[in-house]
């Protein structure tokens, strides 16, 4: 694992390395170099399989974090490539030319986070939400509870309990 | 009476006199020349008239005052007068035709022209061998002059080749003449004949040389490359002269000198003639230059005439009639075609589509082409008929086969050429102008063809008089072709109706049934014609031509009349078929199969005619020899029309591409002609077998396989009309099977199925035609849901398919029931099982037809489509009425047919009790079934309707679609490759093995033609070599084999 990261380092800049497990590491790279690094990993280092592409909203830093989780089936190791991109006009280079299925991930990210992937096939087509008009629901500034209350006719009288509290009260009422 | 010597005098005088007008006034010179030609024509015609009407004796004219052998003598006899008239008439019209050309080229050309005809005249008349040689040379040189004066490079080159070739020939001829003179001491032909030179030692070689020279003069295959180049490059007017006039003279010389040769010379001439006929036509196949193609045809035709002369021992006193018939047709038609080639000026036959800009020219071309192939009513038809009859009668089977083969091959390229003219793309082709002087001769010649055709029909010497009334009606319709459709349609229907009315009382038995199918059916389908607007140029004469042929079949009492009608029908239907949009290749394969089939029929009739004095159809009943062969020939011939398996490949395309109202004519009606033929054949000839093999059993299998394959292929079609066409093939398979059973029930099934097939196929083709009319496509998967737009058409189709599938209570079931009983009676279970299997397969295409067109999803484009034209629906609903009548009262159809069959098949008839039919095995009451089924149906329907009277009407996408909804009608309509799983299993059965086979045959013929054609490389030396080699080979064969020993 280490030598792989070293080999990447000879060519590219890696800003942070996190070794999660023996066979799982994460590297943080710049937006510009990301696709190039992934291509290198796929073609040279044998990470033939894209496990997933996902995003996280770091609203505090005004960033989205994209994670490309790659798998090397022969070495049985995983490597996550993290990219931070700006929340404003979030956009990232498309990787669908490397794996066709990436287009689907990117479509989902476009819908749920509003991250654009120019030139990705069908990226603007609705994925799960048909005709969504609000801000993308996975952004942390979207208040899902509020939205649900405004939209879905909450039944009056519904009580929500914290399960732990509730069970504690029920099982040990005297404590 | 003006003496024949004046012909020479006038010609010479004019030629001489013209010299004075060098450049003065060309039109005047031309007038003078024309006058001379006219006078020459007049003289010869006058003699001919005298011979024909006044018992004129043959006249001998001696020049220089001595008697032969010391003088040049001319003879004017009956034959001479005919040939002279032909040649001079041709000369006269050639002159008219060449008016502009001759005027431009000047007096020299005119002089040469006159001299040419003088030469030809003398060649015909002279009785002096050397004189013959001289004038032969004169005319040859004159022709070369005509060619060379053209002053075009290829013309000069070909003239040069001609020169070399004729040099060799004249050399041979001259040596021969010297030898003859040496041995017989006379040049007077009568003396030579009398001297029996053949039997003088050394005389053999002399006559041989003359014979070979004369034969070479006629351009035998393959030593004729030079002639082809001439035909191709010379002015078409000159080509006409070479092809017609000089060839005529050449034939006459041969004819004249024939008695001088030994009897085996006949054989040689026959061999060379036949070889030339077949070989030249074979090479013609690959041609696509019009004039060269005509050249091949010319050579072939002259070869045929040569063969006829050579076959004199077989033909006896019919030789002259045959030879004249063929020659006359050849001259008129070929000259006409060459002239047309001069008008159209398109070298490539593909560009002849341009001729269509003037439909009358097309009519002329059609006349000439059909005359050449030997269609009625042209002289060649009668000549060929006699030829084949006589050949068969005197056991010339091999000759017969080869001549028919050659004729067939000629048909291939002539019809291909004609097809291009009728159907080719003519948008970007250059304009052409028609000068009166060019078109007039062609028109007169065409009229001449018809006139001589009529005249020859009176000479056939059999009692049967042809029924020319329908033909006159065709001419009448042609004359009023400028009128709008509805008038012509009314007239046509009235004409057919009137004719039916007049002949109805005279029709009996099965002729009545088929008469009604042909004529009443014709009237019905013609009704649909009212739907058309405009003029529909040329449609009505052709339609009536087909119906005239069909009714001729009904009325025919003799084999000749039958064959006449058969050919007429073929020609008419060919024209109808080729009218369709993309029907050029299909029409070609149709006509080729038809012509091929017709020749088989001809051969069959000829063999049947052996040792019988009459031509009555009854000769088939007491055939003397070769009965199974005759049966096979005729059966295969008729089965080309019923499109039985192996002979069916012409049908789908032809029927599918035809116009909406033509499809029912050619499918529902025309195919019955084949059935009718088979019926006549089987009734007359009875049981036949090859050794132990029962031909009828084979026929039954053919019928069964046809039924299975036809239906199977129908099920896999995407094109609605093609589907119907294949279904016709299948259904005719049942009919053939039924006929092959040779029992009362089998025939009852076959004939009633014929009637039923006529009804439902007319119904379906008209209905589908109406749909195609509206939606402008034949691909079924592009339609769908049309029931809402065309409910009336839908009902027609629904009834039609119920009848096809044989589901009770409609009348189709009757046919199935009878067939079952017939099979149990006969015991041929395996073919029968195939037939019933085919009946079930019919469900596949029936459902597909109605589903993919009328049910399922309506397409965007068809949302505003209207119901089919009213006049298309009228005949459909008349037929529907009749179908319902026959369904409810089956004995109204079956009982009369049964009574017709009773005299022929007295055993096993159905017993009728009211509407209850009882056979040896079962029973069937059509009326009762109808009542019961309708009763149940109405009851259930009334109940259901009451239950659901408030049903909500919904639209086409309101379907439970797995919680989604359809988005496009195209993707929701399940139609394309509908029976995919079925195709996966049984698709191998419908791989186009048979089409491939025929394709291979045609490829093969083309390849052979192409190989052989390479000997014509355009090199004069090679051509000369060919001639020499021909002589050598001929010599070796002649002296090695049979000649003079």
């Amino acid at each position, binding site marked *: 694992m280490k030598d792989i990261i070293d080999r990447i380092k000879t060519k590219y800049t890696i800003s942070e390395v996190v070794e999660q497990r023996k066979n799982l590491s994460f590297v943080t790279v710049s937006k510009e170099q990301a696709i190039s690094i992934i291509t290198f990993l796929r073609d040279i280092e044998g990470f033939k399989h894209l496990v997933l592409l996902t995003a996280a909203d770091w609203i505090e830093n005004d960033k989205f974090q994209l994670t490309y989780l790659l798998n090397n089936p022969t070495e049985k190791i995983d490597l996550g490539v993290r990219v931070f991109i700006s929340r404003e006009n979030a956009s990232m280079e498309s990787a669908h030319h490397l794996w066709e299925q990436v287009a689907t991930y990117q479509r989902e990210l476009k819908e749920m986070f509003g991250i654009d992937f120019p030139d990705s096939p069908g990226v603007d087509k*609705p994925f799960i939400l048909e005709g969504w008009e609000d801000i993308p629901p996975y952004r942390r500034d979207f208040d899902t509870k509020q939205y649900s209350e405004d939209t*879905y006719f909450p039944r009056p009288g519904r009580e929500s309990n914290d399960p732990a509290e509730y069970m504690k009260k029920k099982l040990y009422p005297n404590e | 009476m003006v003496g024949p010597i004046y012909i020479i005098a006038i010609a010479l005088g004019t030629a001489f006199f013209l010299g004075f007008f060098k450049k003065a006034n060309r039109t005047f010179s031309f007038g003078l020349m024309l006058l001379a030609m006219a006078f020459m024509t007049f003289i010869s015609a006058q003699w001919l008239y005298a011979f024909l009407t006044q018992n004129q004796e043959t006249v001998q004219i001696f020049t220089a005052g001595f008697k032969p052998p010391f003088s040049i003598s001319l003879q004017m006899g009956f034959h001479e007068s005919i040939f002279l008239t032909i040649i001079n008439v041709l000369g006269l019209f050639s002159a008219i035709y060449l008016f502009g050309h001759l005027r431009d080229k000047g007096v020299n050309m005119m002089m040469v022209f006159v001299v040419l005809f003088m030469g030809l005249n003398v060649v015909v008349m002279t009785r002096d061998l050397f004189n013959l040689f001289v004038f032969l040379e004169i005319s040859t040189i004159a022709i070369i002059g005509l060619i060379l004066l053209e002053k075009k490079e290829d013309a000069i080159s070909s003239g040069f080749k001609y020169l070399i070739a004729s040099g060799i020939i004249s050399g041979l001829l001259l040596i021969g003449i010297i030898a003859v003179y040496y041995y017989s001491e006379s040049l007077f032909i009568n003396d030579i004949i009398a001297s029996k030179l053949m039997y003088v030692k050394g005389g053999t070689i002399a006559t041989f040389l003359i014979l070979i020279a004369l034969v070479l003069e006629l351009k035998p295959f393959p030593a004729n490359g030079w002639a082809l180049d001439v035909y191709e490059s010379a002015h078409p007017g000159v080509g006409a002269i070479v092809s017609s006039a000089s060839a005529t003279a050449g034939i006459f010389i041969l004819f004249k000198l024939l008695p001088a040769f030994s009897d085996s010379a006949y054989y040689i001439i026959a061999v060379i003639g036949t070889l030339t006929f077949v070989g030249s036509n074979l090479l013609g196949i690959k041609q696509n230059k019009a004039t060269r193609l005509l050249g091949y045809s010319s050579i072939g035709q002259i070869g045929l005439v040569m063969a006829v002369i050579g076959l004199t021992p077989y033909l006896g006193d019919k030789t002259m009639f045959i030879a004249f018939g063929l020659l006359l047709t050849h001259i008129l038609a070929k000259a006409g075609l060459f002239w047309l080639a001069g008008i159209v000026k398109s070298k490539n036959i593909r560009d002849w589509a341009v001729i269509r800009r003037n439909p009358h020219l097309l009519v002329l071309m059609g006349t000439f082409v059909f005359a050449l192939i030997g269609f009625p009513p042209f002289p060649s038809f009668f000549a060929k008929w006699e030829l084949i009859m006589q050949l068969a009668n005197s056991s010339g089977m091999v000759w017969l086969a080869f001549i028919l083969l050659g004729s067939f091959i000629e048909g291939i390229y002539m019809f291909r050429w004609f097809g291009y003219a009728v159907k080719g793309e003519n948008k970007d082709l250059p304009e052409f102008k028609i000068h009166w002087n060019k078109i007039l001769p062609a028109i007169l010649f065409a009229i001449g063809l018809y006139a001589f055709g009529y005249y020859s029909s009176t000479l056939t010497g059999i009692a049967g008089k042809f029924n020319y009334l329908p033909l006159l009606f065709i001419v009448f319709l042609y004359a009023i072709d400028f009128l709008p459709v509805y008038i012509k349609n009314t007239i046509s229907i009235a004409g057919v109706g009137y004719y039916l009315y007049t002949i109805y009382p005279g029709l009996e038995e099965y002729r009545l049934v088929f008469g009604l199918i042909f004529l009443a059916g014709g009237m019905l389908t013609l009704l649909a014609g009212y739907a058309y607007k405009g003029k529909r140029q040329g449609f009505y004469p052709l339609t009536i031509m087909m119906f005239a042929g069909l009714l001729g079949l009904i009325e025919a009492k003799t084999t000749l009349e039958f064959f006449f009608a058969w050919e007429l029908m073929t020609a008419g239907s060919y024209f109808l078929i080729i009218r369709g949009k993309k029907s050029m290749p299909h029409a070609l394969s149709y006509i080729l199969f038809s012509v091929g089939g017709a020749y088989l029929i001809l051969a069959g009739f000829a063999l049947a005619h052996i040792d019988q004095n009459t031509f009555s159809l009854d000769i088939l009943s007491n055939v003397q020899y070769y009965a199974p062969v005759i049966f096979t020939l005729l059966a295969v011939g008729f089965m080309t029309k019923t499109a039985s398996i192996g002979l069916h490949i012409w049908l789908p395309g032809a029927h599918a591409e035809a116009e909406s109202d033509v499809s029912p004519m050619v499918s529902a009606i025309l195919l019955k002609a084949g059935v009718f033929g088979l019926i006549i054949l089987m009734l007359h000839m009875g049981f036949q077998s090859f050794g132990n093999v029962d031909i009828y059993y084979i026929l039954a299998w053919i019928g069964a396989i046809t039924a299975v394959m036809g239906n199977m292929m129908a099920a896999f079609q995407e094109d609605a009309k093609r589907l119907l066409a294949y279904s016709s093939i299948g259904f005719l398979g049942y009919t053939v099977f039924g006929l092959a059973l040779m029992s009362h029930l089998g025939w009852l099934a076959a004939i009633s199925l014929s009637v039923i097939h006529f009804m439902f196929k007319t119904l379906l083709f008209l209905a589908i035609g109406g749909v195609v009319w509206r939606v402008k496509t034949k691909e079924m998967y592009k339609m769908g849901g049309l029931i809402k737009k065309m409910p009336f058409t839908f009902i027609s189709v629904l009834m039609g398919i119920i009848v096809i599938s044989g589901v009770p209570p409609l009348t189709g079931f009757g046919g199935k029931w009878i067939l079952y009983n017939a099979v149990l009676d006969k015991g041929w279970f395996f073919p029968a099982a195939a037939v019933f299997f085919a009946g079930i397969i019919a469900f596949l295409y029936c459902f597909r037809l109605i589903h993919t067109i009328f049910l399922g999803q309506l397409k965007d484009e068809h949302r505003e489509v209207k119901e089919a034209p009213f006049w298309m629906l009228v005949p459909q609903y008349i037929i529907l009425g009749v179908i319902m009548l026959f369904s409810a009262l089956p004995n109204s159809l079956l009982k009369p047919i049964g009574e017709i069959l009773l005299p022929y098949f007295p055993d096993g008839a159905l017993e009728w009790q009211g509407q209850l039919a009882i056979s040896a095995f079962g029973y069937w009451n059509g009326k009762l079934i109808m009542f019961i089924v309708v009763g149940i149906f109405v009851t259930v329907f009334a109940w259901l309707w009451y239950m659901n009277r408030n049903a909500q009407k919904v639209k*086409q*996408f309101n379907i439970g679609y797995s919680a989604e909804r359809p*988005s496009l009608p195209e993707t929701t309509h399940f139609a394309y490759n509908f029976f995919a799983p079925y195709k996966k299993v049984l698709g191998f059965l419908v791989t186009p093995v048979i089409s491939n086979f025929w394709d291979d045959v045609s490829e093969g013929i083309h390849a052979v033609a192409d190989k052989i054609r390479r000997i014509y490389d355009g090199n004069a030396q090679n051509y000369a070599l060919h001639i020499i080699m021909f002589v050598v080979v001929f010599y070796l064969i002649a002296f090695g084999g049979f000649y003079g020993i």
Partner: protein
Amino acid sequence: MKEDFKKRTVISPDGKPIEIDPVKDYFSDAKPKVYKPAHPVIEKFANWARANSLWVLGFGTGCGAIEMRPLMTPRFDAYRYGIQWRPTPRQSSVFVISGYLSVKTLKRVVRTYEQMQNPKFVIALGSCTINGGMYWDSYNTINRLDHYLPVDVYVAGCMPRPESLLTGFEELKKIIKEGRGEGANKYAENFDWYKANQKKIIKDWDMPDYNW
């Protein structure tokens, strides 16, 4: 709206351009009807038959679909109560909404419900259909099914066991026999209200108001 449902112009065989509005041209736009019950005697008999022949539409809308399957097995054997499964809404009479319902699924559910024939019954299975259950604050699942479809029987629980579902069916039978199973008519009567609720959350409404 999908491309296929936008207006388009095609050329007819005659060469004339035709305007096609798929939603109008290809779908019936009739409103649902209220069907009056027949004469009480007949209706009672009919209701008995309806109650004893519950044809359930085989459409699992949420996680509860897994609870329906055991009903077919020998352990629970719902057939003995006259409960059978049909593959098409046309022939079914009971629609079991099995658990949470996302907006996307709701669109299909509405369409399918409307394709069923009157009388038709809805069993709402699980808490999610009652008040949203554990998805009560989700941006994408509904909270109350009865705002979109008339519900005959609720089966509470997360998830209810198959036995509960069977009890629900028995309850439905009771309701039908008593002549209270008029959900379809209720839907037709309050059609505008239901439609307004549905359209409020189904944003790309590309179908006619009532899917026959």
